[in-house]
């Protein structure tokens, strides 16, 4: 298992916050983290509707120790709070998900979504500006035409790099319920957005209509038993996607089969262990995240206590199950009381699909090596983070004698939760969002 160290004590703080990280506003809480396809850019969304994009510094022979540092590249307000007057509902501006489009020209494109509206943003650089207009002076003021005696051709001159983000498309009014996922199709022409009961397929060019491809809303809402919790397209097959449900099931659908994919092609479900039955069995079996492996062969799901890896060819049970924090099983009632049991943890694959990572409480996050079956618990905290320091594995003591470096279950801070993490597509660089702080860790390089 590789050791992760901190190349630099990079702790992100939102630009407009002058408070220390221990005292932050709710709007600064990071709600999504995503690397782009090359890993050059890292986007974060927060509860205040802002998107902050980091760019990796180019390697420089002169400053080897600064290789790979991520700096703020662009910040923009993606979504604003809205009010639905018809339903008397406030629509939160919190960014639920960001998904990058593959780069096709000099500009970068990403999708960001809140509960109701998906937006396509173009992030582009401007490092030249035209000078020498005839009708305007350098400040842009119009010149009196009578004073113009000569004509000149405007020229482009270099300027300080400016990164601007512009909304290119707004996909609105297609979701009655809260959007929980977006996923870009491998054809790069379409994407899907999923809410609690429906999944819609969009074309990037068309904003005023979308195809509904999954609809699990029952005729009688009182017969509702499950909702959609996450959805994702297959990384290579543009006709295939999966969606997970609150009942702990995953359905794989093929869009070639029919226009409405209510009937799944594959159905993944593990029988419940009756010995673990409790009041909260349904809650902890609800899947909070589903991710295809980069190979497209496996899917990984996260429920409250475990991460499971499924082989697409075997529907009746997962091939691997990892316990994230099983010591919480006896504390479900308390976690229900303080609402922690509803936390939606995400999970990620590394570039080679050999390691999976997910978050936990007390700013802990866990990594599982699928090959060696070893796992490690690490902590994202200021105190443990000195430059060049190697992250020390942490351990939770579940009972009995507590060793020196262990932390007991009752000492865990449940307000410090790591819900969102991201892994660089090809290197061992991870981004971990701890409330309002973003930690970026890199593998130790010799």
């Amino acid at each position, binding site marked *: 298992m590789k050791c992760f160290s901190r190349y630099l004590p990079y702790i992100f703080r939102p630009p407009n916050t002058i408070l220390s990280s221990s005292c932050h506003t709710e709007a600064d809480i990071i709600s999504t983290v995503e690397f782009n396809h090359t890993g050059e850019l890292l986007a974060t969304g927060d509860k205040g509707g802002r998107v902050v994009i980091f760019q990796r510094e180019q390697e420089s022979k002169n400053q080897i120790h600064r290789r790979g540092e991520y700096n703020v590249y662009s910040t923009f307000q993606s979504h604003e709070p809205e009010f639905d007057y018809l339903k008397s509902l406030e629509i939160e501006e919190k960014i639920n998900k960001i998904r990058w489009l593959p780069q096709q020209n000099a500009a970068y494109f990403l999708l960001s979504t809140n509960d109701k509206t998906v937006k396509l943003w173009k992030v582009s650089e401007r490092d030249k500006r035209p000078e020498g207009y005839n009708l305007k002076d350098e400040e842009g003021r119009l010149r009196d035409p009578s004073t113009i005696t000569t004509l000149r051709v405007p020229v482009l001159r270099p300027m300080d790099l400016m990164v601007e983000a512009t909304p290119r498309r707004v996909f609105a009014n297609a979701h009655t319920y809260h959007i929980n996922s977006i996923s870009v199709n491998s054809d790069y022409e379409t994407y899907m957005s999923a809410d609690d009961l429906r999944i819609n397929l969009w074309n990037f060019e068309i904003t005023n209509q979308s195809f509904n491809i999954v609809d699990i809303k029952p005729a009688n809402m*009182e017969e509702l038993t499950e909702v959609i919790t996450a959805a994702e397209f297959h990384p290579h097959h543009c006709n295939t996607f999966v969606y997970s449900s609150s009942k702990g099931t995953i359905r794989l659908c093929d869009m070639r089969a029919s226009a409405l994919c209510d009937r799944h092609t594959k159905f993944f479900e593990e029988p419940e262990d009756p010995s673990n039955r409790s009041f909260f069995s349904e809650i902890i079996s609800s899947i909070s995240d589903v991710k295809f492996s980069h190979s497209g062969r496996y899917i990984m799901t996260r429920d409250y206590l475990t991460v499971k890896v499924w082989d697409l060819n075997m529907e009746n049970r997962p091939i691997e199950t990892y316990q994230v924090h099983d010591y919480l099983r006896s504390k479900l009632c308390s976690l229900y009381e303080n609402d922690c049991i509803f936390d939606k943890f995400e999970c990620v694959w590394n570039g080679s699909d050999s390691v999976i990572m997910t978050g936990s409480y007390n700013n802990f996050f866990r990594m599982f090596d699928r090959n060696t079956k070893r796992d490690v618990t690490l902590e994202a905290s200021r105190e443990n983070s000195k430059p060049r320091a190697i992250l020390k594995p942490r351990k939770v003591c579940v009972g009995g004698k507590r060793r020196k470096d262990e932390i007991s279950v009752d000492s865990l801070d449940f307000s410090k939760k790591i819900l969102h993490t991201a892994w660089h597509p090809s290197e061992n660089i991870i981004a971990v969002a701890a409330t309002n702080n973003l930690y970026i860790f890199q593998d130790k390089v010799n």
Partner: protein
Amino acid sequence: MEFKLEAHRIVSISLGKIYNSRVQRGGIKLHKNLLVSLVLRSARQVYLSDPCPGLYLASPAGSPVAPPQQPREPAARPPAGWEEPPSPAARATWQETEPQPERPATPGERRTDGAEPAASVTGTGDALRGGEAEAAEAAWRRVEGPREAEAGEPGGPAGDSDVFPEGPRAARRHCCCAPGREDKPGTPTGSPRVDCCCMSRPAEDEPPAPPPVCPRKRGATGVGGGTAGCPAPGSTPQKKPRRNLEEQPGGGEEEEEMETGNVANLISIFGSSFSGLLRKKSPGGGREEEEGEESRPEAAEPGQICCDKPVLRDMNPWSTAIVAF
């Protein structure tokens, strides 16, 4: 016994969550409320199936005594009342007179008159005599019955597919049709009406008349008993089928209507897998009425409200604690 207490506690927590979800920013979260409703249902099943009689379930043979003191205390001190099992008398009264709040509240029909409710609520005696579990179940039924009686919000959000309209409609249907039993199918007729008759509308004097709330149960006389159609306080519940007796009081008794509607509404969640949760009552920017409904129990002293509402006196501390939310 421990299971029952645990279930009791979980139920109270769940109801609190549902209540709070209505004021959360961003609207009611369907997923979370679904999960909470599943927990509620599990806890309720445990609670009802636990054979242990418990201190608070014993009841003398249906004497509709209105215990003035005991319920008031819990109301005044919700936490204490919450933990204290109601006295047998209180329990009996609650079981018997639970429908009372939902009846069109006319001054003459106040719960203080204990005998009348017993007489007018047909089948109540049977329920009481039928044994504890049955009584409990009957109590649940009665509690859920009123759902239909509550006037629905007239200005419900448009759109069938919206979660809010669905919920109230579902709640309404469920309450009418499936008294506490999930296996009973819901109303076959999909009333397009968005409003939930099961929801109380505190600010409305005249509950609007929606299409038949639960056509299955209502029948020809249904409309009158229908929520919205909740007649003016002059109605004579005695003439109506039992379910209609539990109707939300019409005009006039706004506070009481809202009060019990609120409580009964929350309690109705027990009987449904999901309905009752997806109410039109949106949190942020909610209508005044909604806020009125929610805030009024809170704004006034719980004890104060109970003073004015003999209804609450007869409810067990469980219900009063819900009011205190």
